[in-house]
């Protein structure tokens, strides 16, 4: 304790530590029946941190080439001390991170935390969610196993269906006409350099915006508190909320450890570009609702290609979702009702299509 005090004094003398940390001490978090949803953003951030740490450790042994990728991951899983744990945590944390990011997005939506002045917080958050899915897509190929190979083939094929630039996008993603070692190298570059760079900047912006505008109070609670100000409660962000968030992180760590130990992430078989695609191949769960929807659309809808129509619909829906807060203020509550309805529909649609995707052959 004396050492800590000494370090604190040292920093305070040089950087005016008390002044620097003043916003943190002043920051407070509203306390009400829905406060537990506030932990989701922090848990997502924690899992992102886990991804960075385990990702760096994996980089020590991983080799991004078609001839060595699978073997290097196999080596990590079997020979490297705790390699299995690091890789399994990396893979499980990736999935949990996307799950908590989705949950965070829907909680923000249903608690209407995107309202003025937090529109840009929503926009940066949505872009971060898309980036997280990009991380998932690019990272999935890196072990260079059969499932990853064909999932990437299908995924980039879908990208190739885009109008005008589709073919170019597909070739850019693949590094050629087909999924090859060039694709692997490219995806590795996206996964460990491009996406982390953009994500880190956006996370900083997102957190700064949260810091700037504070934590939103749901409209219902806000109304109630206006009527009875004595009921309004809040807690200090530091240390009260922070320590509770730390507890949530520990729980997330326990879940991660349990998943990694009880169900280590599988490796599959090495990708063979000349082999036939496995029967019933499916993407990762977070792409499954889109994949299943595209499968259900008829080959031709009127005169438009069914798959192209599906991609366009998802593209437009994604763009509208990104700009969602800007519709909230429309015509006396109509926009708000529309957003809530769309949110309910989207949640139901994603859950239903994901389950259907798993059950369908």
């Amino acid at each position, binding site marked *: 304790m004396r050492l800590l005090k000494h370090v604190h004094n040292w920093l305070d003398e040089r950087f005016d530590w008390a002044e620097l940390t003043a916003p943190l001490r002043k920051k407070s978090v509203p306390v009400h029946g829905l406060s537990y949803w506030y932990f989701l953003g922090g848990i997502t951030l924690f899992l992102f941190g886990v991804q960075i740490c385990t990702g760096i450790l994996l980089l020590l042994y991983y080799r991004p080439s078609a001839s060595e990728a699978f073997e290097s991951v196999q080596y990590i899983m079997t020979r490297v001390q705790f390699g299995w744990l690091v890789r399994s945590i990396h893979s499980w944390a990736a999935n949990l991170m996307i799950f908590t990011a989705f949950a965070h997005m829907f909680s923000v939506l249903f608690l209407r935390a995107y309202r003025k002045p937090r529109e840009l917080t929503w926009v940066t958050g949505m872009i971060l969610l898309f980036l997280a899915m990009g991380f998932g897509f690019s990272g999935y190929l890196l072990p260079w196993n059969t499932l990853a190979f064909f999932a990437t083939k299908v995924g980039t094929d879908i990208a190739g269906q885009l109008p005008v630039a589709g073919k170019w996008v597909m070739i850019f993603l693949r590094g050629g006409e087909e999924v090859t070692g060039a694709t692997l190298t490219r995806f590795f570059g996206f996964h460990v350099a491009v996406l982390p760079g953009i994500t880190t900047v956006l996370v900083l912006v997102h957190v700064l915006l949260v810091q700037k505008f504070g934590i939103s109070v749901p409209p219902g609670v806000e109304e109630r508190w206006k009527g009875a100000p004595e009921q309004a409660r809040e*807690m200090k962000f530091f240390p009260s909320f922070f*320590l509770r968030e730390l*507890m949530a992180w520990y729980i997330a*760590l326990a879940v991660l450890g349990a998943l990694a130990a009880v169900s*280590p992430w599988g490796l599959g078989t090495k990708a063979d570009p000349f082999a036939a695609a496995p029967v019933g191949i499916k993407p990762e769960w977070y792409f499954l609702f889109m994949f299943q929807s595209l499968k259900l659309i008829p080959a031709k809808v009127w005169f438009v290609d069914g798959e192209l129509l599906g991609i366009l619909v998802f593209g437009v829906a994604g763009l509208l979702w990104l700009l969602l807060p800007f519709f909230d203020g429309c015509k006396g509550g109509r926009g708000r009702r529309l957003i809530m309805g769309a949110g309910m529909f989207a949640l139901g649609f994603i859950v239903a299509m994901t389950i259907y995707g798993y059950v369908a052959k």
Partner: protein
Amino acid sequence: MWRNKRLYQVLGLLLGMGCFAGAAAAQTASTCADCHGALDAPLQVTAEQFAADIHAQKGLTCASCHGGDPSKADMDAMSKAAGFRGKVERKQVPELCGRCHSDGAYMRQYNPSLRTDQLSQYKTSVHGKRLAQGDTKVAVCTDCHGVHGLRPASDTRSKVHPLNVAQTCSRCHADAAYMKSYAIPTDQFAKYKGSVHYEAMTMRGDLSAPTCTTCHGNHGAAPPGVGTVQNVCSNCHVFQSQLYEKSSHRAAFQKAGLPGCVVCHSKHDISQPSDAKLDGGPEAACMQCHKTGDVCDQARAEILGSLMRLDQAIRNADQVLADAEASGMEVSQARLEQDQARDALTKARVSIHRFQVPPVDQDVQAGLKIAAKNLQAGQDALRERGYRRMGLGVALLSILLVLVGLRLYIGKIEQKAR
């Protein structure tokens, strides 16, 4: 007016040229199909049949086999003067086909790789010899290959495509009434349909699997004979044959007039060989000749014991590796190496054809070594799984303690703040 006159002249000229071309075409076309397409069987030859016929596709006509002059109308086309031979008699069929198919220079223009020894081979076959003796019930070229609508053997619809050969042979050889005068069995096809070879051919689509002609020959079809059975089987089962050559059984079987491979494996109804052939049960092959307790019976028991030991060792390793894999442990390398143990078992089973204990035992020992190593890998993985779960328990307990500590600490500082 003048322009119209020229136009009529041009049209007239074009019309005249068209009529001339039509007449020329009518003169060169075969008139056979005009009548035979409309006749009832057996004289009927439809346009579809003829169009599918390989000979017609190569430019041959009815007259190539039947003679006559197809450019003439009505019965003039089939007059003696036009060289008409009429229906080719069965005993003349091989020679007629051989006119082209034995002519290397002629056949080269259609298919340089096609053999031209079918007729000479046929003459050495049981069918050919009997035909020469005047027996017209025996198979001639058209019985197997068909006539009018004849397709190349590579066509799956051909009667002589590997998938269809057994069915084609069975048309006569499974017909007890037809074969009565020859006093030979007619159950070959029924037996063959229960064999491992038939399964390979029809179920697995392995066109290299043996069918009737693989063992008996096609144009020179004849029973292999007791002394040459081994030569027939060895075309595919090379290693078994080489080991059998060196074994004591070869001389013993020769002396006893026994047909080699067939003694233990039978012929048309060859089933998937199993280790049961070596035991004392109903499938046992050895005990047909050997006596219980003799030196060979002891060797048999020893060989069987070795094989079963390796088989069991492979199963044990498979089981442990499957358990480890189901727990998410990475054992793919050991799983892969299990194939080497299985290969050793297959090799040991092949070595049986030497009919001695040491060669079998050598292969079995090699397999046991691999299976033991893989079993160890599986057990190590399960042990590692145990360590991981223990580690998880310790980690979870530590986290729980931290959580309790944090909660208490939060309570304490919040109470202090109040």
